[in-house]
C-alpha cells in the first residue's frame, strides 16, 4: 500500500505526505450526510530545491494538498513531514506557529491575499518585525528586487498597485521571511496571459538564487511544464500520474493526462472549422469503487470498475496508476 520508491530517502526530501486522506462530511439540504473525499490516499514527496507541479482540475484536491502540507488544514488520516536542518517535523503534531517558520504560501487572488489598505512597505516589514529580524530595510529591498518591483512603490498603498504588481508583492512577501518550502496556489490563474511569464520567471529566479522548494499548483498544464521539475497529475483526490515534466508531456501514460494534453489548444486557426475530438466524457462522475477515472475513461475495462489501480513505476521516475500497465 505504501509506495516507498518515489518517496525518496530521508536525506532527499523537504516535504513528504504518506497515505494522506482528507475527507469532509457534508450534509445535504434534508440532512443527508455524504462524504467528500478531497484527497484519497495520496503519497508524494518533494525534493529539496525542487519545483513540484501539481496539476488538476476542479475537484482534484490540489489546493487541499497544498494547504495540508503547510499545516493550514488537518488531514483525516495520514502523515505529513517537513524536513528542515536534517530534522523531521510531523506537521500533524506541530503547531502552526512552529511550522510557519519554514513554510509560506502564495495565494491565487492578489486582490484578497494582500490587504489593499496597507502600505506596501508594511506588507513586507510586518512579518519581519514579528520574527524579530534585524536589518529589515535591506531584506525588504532585496525581496523587491527579486520580484522586479521598483523601490518607489514602497511608499504606496496596495490598492494603488495593479493585479500583476500585487501578485509580485505576494511573492516578495513569501520569500522575504526566508522559508524553505513555498506552496504557490494557482499564482498565475487570475493574471492575463501577458503577465504569467513574468511571475514564472520570478519564481524560477527565486529558486535559483535562494534555493526554495515549491509546490506549484495549477490547472494549466503548459504552465506546469514550464516551471516544474516534476509533475503530479491529480484527479478526484488521487495521484494518477507522476514524473518529470518533460516525460509527462512527451509521453503521457494515464488516459486522463493524455486527454488533457490532446485537448489543449494549439495555435492553428486552420483547424477551427472542425469539431475537436474529445475522447473523455465531459461530466465528472465519482464512482463508488474501482478506478476514479473509470466513468470517463475511453479505455475502461471491466477490471477498472472493480479494483483501484495503484501507482506503479513504468519507467525510471515515471509512475502511473492505471490498469493499462
Amino acid at each position, binding site marked *: 500500500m505504501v509506495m516507498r520508491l518515489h518517496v525518496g530517502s530521508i536525506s532527499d526530501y523537504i516535504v513528504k505526505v504518506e497515505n494522506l486522506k482528507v475527507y469532509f462530511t457534508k450534509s445535504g439540504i434534508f440532512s443527508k450526510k455524504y462524504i467528500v473525499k478531497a484527497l484519497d490516499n495520496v503519497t508524494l514527496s518533494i525534493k529539496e530545491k525542487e519545483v513540484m507541479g501539481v496539476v488538476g482540475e476542479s475537484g482534484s484536491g490540489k489546493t487541499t494538498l497544498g494547504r495540508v502540507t503547510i499545516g493550514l488544514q488537518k488531514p483525516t488520516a495520514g502523515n505529513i513531514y517537513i524536513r528542515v536542518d536534517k530534522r523531521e517535523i510531523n506537521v500533524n503534531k506541530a503547531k502552526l506557529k512552529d511550522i510557519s517558520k519554514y513554510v509560506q504560501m502564495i495565494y491565487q487572488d492578489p486582490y484578497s491575499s494582500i490587504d489593499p489598505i496597507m502600505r506596501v512597505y508594511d506588507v513586507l516589514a510586518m512579518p519581519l518585525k514579528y520574527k524579530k529580524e534585524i536589518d529589515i530595510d535591506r531584506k525588504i529591498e532585496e525581496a523587491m528586487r527579486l520580484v522586479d518591483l521598483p523601490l518607489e512603490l514602497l511608499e504606496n498603498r496596495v490598492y494603488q498597485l495593479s493585479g500583476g504588481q500585487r501578485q509580485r508583492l505576494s511573492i516578495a512577501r513569501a520569500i522575504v521571511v526566508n522559508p524553505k518550502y513555498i506552496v504557490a496556489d494557482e499564482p498565475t490563474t487570475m493574471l492575463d*496571459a*501577458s503577465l*504569467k511569464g513574468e511571475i514564472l520567471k520570478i519564481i524560477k529566479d527565486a529558486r535559483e538564487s535562494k534555493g526554495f522548494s515549491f509546490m506549484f499548483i495549477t490547472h494549466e498544464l503548459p504552465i506546469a511544464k*514550464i516551471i516544474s521539475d516534476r509533475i503530479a497529475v491529480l484527479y478526484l483526490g488521487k495521484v494518477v500520474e507522476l514524473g518529470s515534466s518533460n516525460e509527462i508531456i512527451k509521453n503521457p501514460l494515464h488516459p486522463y493526462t493524455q486527454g488533457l494534453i490532446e485537448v489543449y489548444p494549439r*495555435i*492553428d*486557426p486552420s483547424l477551427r472549422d472542425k469539431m*475537436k475530438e*474529445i475522447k473523455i466524457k465531459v461530466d465528472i462522475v465519482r464512482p463508488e469503487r474501482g478506478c476514479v477515472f473509470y466513468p470517463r475513461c475511453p479505455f475502461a475495462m471491466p477490471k477498472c470498475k472493480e479494483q483501484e489501480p495503484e501507482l506503479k513505476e513504468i519507467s525510471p521516475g515515471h509512475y502511473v496508476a492505471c490498469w493499462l500497465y
Partner: protein
Amino acid sequence: MLLEVRNLKVYFYTKRGIVKAVDDVNLYLDKGEIIGLAGESGSGKSTIGYAIMRLVPFPGKIEGGEILFKGENILKLDEETFRKNYRWKKIAMVFQGSMSGFTPVFKIRDQIIEVLRIHGWTGDYDKRVEELFKMVNMDPQLAEKYPHELSGGQKQRAFIAMALALNPEILIADEPTTALDVMVQEHILNLLKKLREELNLSIIFITHDLALLSEISDRDYMLYAGKVMESGPSEVIFKKPRHPYTSLLVESIATLNKDIIKGIPGSMPDLSNPPVGCRFNTRCPFARDICFKEEPKMKAFSDGDEVACWLY
C-alpha cells in the same frame, strides 16, 4: 453585414476623471461568422459587448458612434423599442460564469420560461426548454435542477440555452469559459461551433485567452486601451501578426511545446489620461519618436489584415 459598429465611444465618468474605456472602435460581423474580441483586462473588450446590448453599467455612457444592426442604428432607438425588439430577441449575451445569469431560488427551467414569457414568446414552453437543452448537448432532465446543483460547465451551457431561447441572430459571449476546466472549455467551444453550423448563429467571442480564439474565430480584433490595434483573419493574426502588440500577445500564449513564455512588460496606461500618440507606446519594443506624438491610422492590407501602427 449583420452588425456594424462605427466609431464607438464609451466613457466612464468616475471621481478620478473620465475613463475612456472604448475610444473610437470600428468592427463588423457577417452572418454566420465568429469574431473574437481579444485584449488584456481593461482593454475595453467587455465594454463593447455591453454597449451592443445597451447595458453599459453606471457610470458609463455611450458617447458617440453608431451600432448598425442590418443597417438600422440601434443606439438611436428608445429603450422600450430596443428592449422589445432587439435585446435578447435579436442579440443575446452570455456572461462570465461567476456572474451567473441565474438566481439561486428558482429552477433553471422556470427561469428560462420566465424569459420566454417576458418577451411574449408564444408556444409550448416545456417543449422549447427541452429543445434548447438538446441544442446545448445537455440532458433535459437537468432543467429541473436549481443552479447550485449544476457544475460550472453545466451552468454555463444552461446559460447559453437561455440566451438562445428567443432565437437571436447574434450571441455575444463574454469570457464564457473562464474558471472552467480545460475539457469543459473545449466542449463549450465545440458547442459554439455546432450552433454556428446548425443555426447559422453569428458569435462575438470576447476573451483575454488568445488560445481559445485560435480554435474558433474567423476574424479577430485585438483591443488595447480602448482602441483596436489590429484586426484580421485568424490565420494572419496568429501566424503573421503585424502589430507588435499582437505578436507579443500571441507569443505569451502558453502552449505545451514552449519552455518559456515571454510577457509584455509594463501595464496598461491610465485610461482617464491616455498617452499622446499610439496608446501602446510605453510598452512597445519598436516605439519611435512619432509613436509618442501622433496616433497611427488604420491601414488595410491585401490579406484582409488592418493595422494601426507606425511601422507600416
